[in-house]
């Protein structure tokens, strides 16, 4: 088990997502550092997959830019090593199970531990399919951050009980992307989680404005922003660092106190 849970102890957490290699590896290092400096409590690094089932067009396009820059698993580990030269911000990977499977469950988790990657978010690995990877994650102290969604229903208890690190609460149905309105009753969803575990919750999918951060921070222990950040990178390319820092600052500031 990693240190991820501790991030949420004193403050509501702001979790920022970038795609590794978008638009190139040096830029991603800068972006992660900037996000951390701006106030991001955890940076979620997307290890791009050719066929990202859970991701919307914004992140898919970022993946294509990353592939154009040569992204693959080895390169992304190199990137993390470079990041670790400049910041100790907690890191998690978001990727699809096949990339971990091909690298080898044991080897991948060992590498994460070596580089200080605390957790894995794997959209295509539901609770029922975690048994293959979980022993290696446990052994290397890497958290498997599960997703709980508005459709999870009866499944919430078992997923929450098995969770380590934090729980990624999916705000709405569908794929990643910014949304102006989130209609799910997230309060109720988070309550159901809290009823069975004290693992922190962070809400993602569709979160992009400080107002949303303020509101959702009342409900959960943190918020996760992906597409909004990726859009800034799409707009500013390798000059995005100051914008990211500023954005992280605004979002973090908007979160309520614990």
């Amino acid at each position: 088990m990693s240190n991820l849970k501790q991030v949420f102890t004193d403050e509501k957490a702001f979790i920022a997502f970038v795609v590794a290699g978008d638009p190139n590896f040096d830029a991603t290092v800068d972006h992660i550092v900037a996000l951390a400096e701006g106030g991001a409590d955890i940076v979620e690094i997307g290890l791009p997959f050719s066929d990202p089932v859970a991701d919307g067009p914004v992140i898919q396009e970022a993946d294509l830019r990353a592939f154009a820059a040569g992204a693959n698993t080895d390169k992304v580990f190199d990137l993390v090593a470079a990041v670790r030269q400049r910041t100790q911000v907690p890191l998690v990977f978001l990727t699809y199970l096949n990339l971990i499977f091909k690298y080898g469950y044991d080897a991948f988790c060992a590498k994460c531990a070596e580089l200080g990657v605390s957790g894995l978010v794997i959209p295509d690995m539901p609770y029922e399919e975690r048994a293959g990877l979980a022993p290696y994650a446990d052994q290397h102290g890497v958290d498997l951050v599960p997703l709980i969604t508005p459709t999870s229903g009866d499944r919430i208890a078992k997923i929450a009980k098995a969770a380590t690190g934090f729980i990624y609460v999916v705000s709405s149905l569908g794929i990643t992307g910014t949304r102006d309105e989130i209609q799910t009753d997230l309060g109720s969803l988070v309550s159901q989680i809290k009823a069975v575990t004290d693992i922190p919750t962070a809400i993602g999918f569709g979160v992009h404005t400080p107002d949303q951060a303020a509101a959702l921070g009342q409900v959960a222990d943190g918020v996760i922003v992906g597409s909004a950040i990726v859009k800034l990178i799409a707009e500013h390319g390798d000059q995005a660092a100051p914008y990211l820092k500023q954005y992280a600052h605004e979002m973090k500031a908007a979160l309520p106190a614990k």
Partner: protein
Amino acid sequence: GRYGTYGGQFIPETLMSEIERITAAYNHYKADPEFLKEFHDLLNNYANRPSLLYFAEQMTADLGGAQIYFKREDLNHTGAHKINNVIGQALLAKRMGKTRLIAETGAGQHGVATATIAALFNMDCEVFMGKEDTDRQRLNVYRMELLGAKVHAVTTGTQVLKDAVTATMQEWTRRVDDTFYVMGSAVGPYPFPQMVHDFQSVISKEAKQQLLQETGKLPDAVVACVGGGSNAIGSFADFIDDPSVKLYGVEAAGDGVDTDRTAATIERGSDGIFHGMKSIFLQDKHGQIDKVYSISAGLDYPGIGPEHAALAKSGRAEYVGITDAESVDAFEYIAKTEGIIAAVESCHAVAYVEKLAPTMRKDQIIICTISGRGDKDVASIAKYRGVDINE
């Protein structure tokens, strides 16, 4: 939910409750006599089953070996085996109270089958198709629209079949309440591969009964083409427990198994996890899924159904590759010898029969599944042969 080490349900959590509901519903209805009666009524009175088991007398004589029988799925309404499965899944969807069907399609065959049944059942239908495919197959797009379906051109990724699958899954995660994803092949998360197996097994059940009635014997070999593997699993299903029956799955080797332009998953691929299942995929060493190639749009898929992966691993079935060139030769051969214009997909199986039959005794029997009709392929075969058929 496993076939040996293959199978599983590797899908987003958003869909897991729905998959549980589908599993429960399917487990209920697959044993429900009313459901099965309606399914078989539709197979017989709409899809035009039983399909013929046809003795290919000319081809048998010409090849001089085993007796060749074709299981004629090309004679089904809409012209391919796809309809069997679509009827089953759409019926399940209806029973589950769904009002909307979504489906991916490559060249358009599964999309047309789904749109057909949606029209018959008066359900909404949306079909996702790679932009490259909608451009290449405008006629099939229009055909689906004629049937009342809405066709979405998928502009993400490589804009072909696997991207259409991804887009359909995404649409399903977006709107799961009233929507059923009609999976087009024996792939995806459990229980889809099993449903497809069950609904397509009518092929081998009929074939076995028909052959027994005609000859009193089991076949010595069953040959079927494999993309995702739905016609093949249907062709194998009722023979898997008959050890004397050899099973051959024929993959599309494209330019050749040893080239980069291939779709021969089992010969060239490796274990992986994709599109909801653990199976065998064409992928790079990092696990990125390859773009694949075959002259046959229906076999142009980088994976294979998990049950096929298991059958390959256990050795119960053998998987072989047939190139574009061999399949085009077979397309012409079966047309000239038997007067049958068979789908280029099916012609991969026919090409393998051309190799296999002469190695067998004359008292032995091969059943080869003609999975679909080839009218859709005539233009591309002409193009392959350098004949101008622009009208």
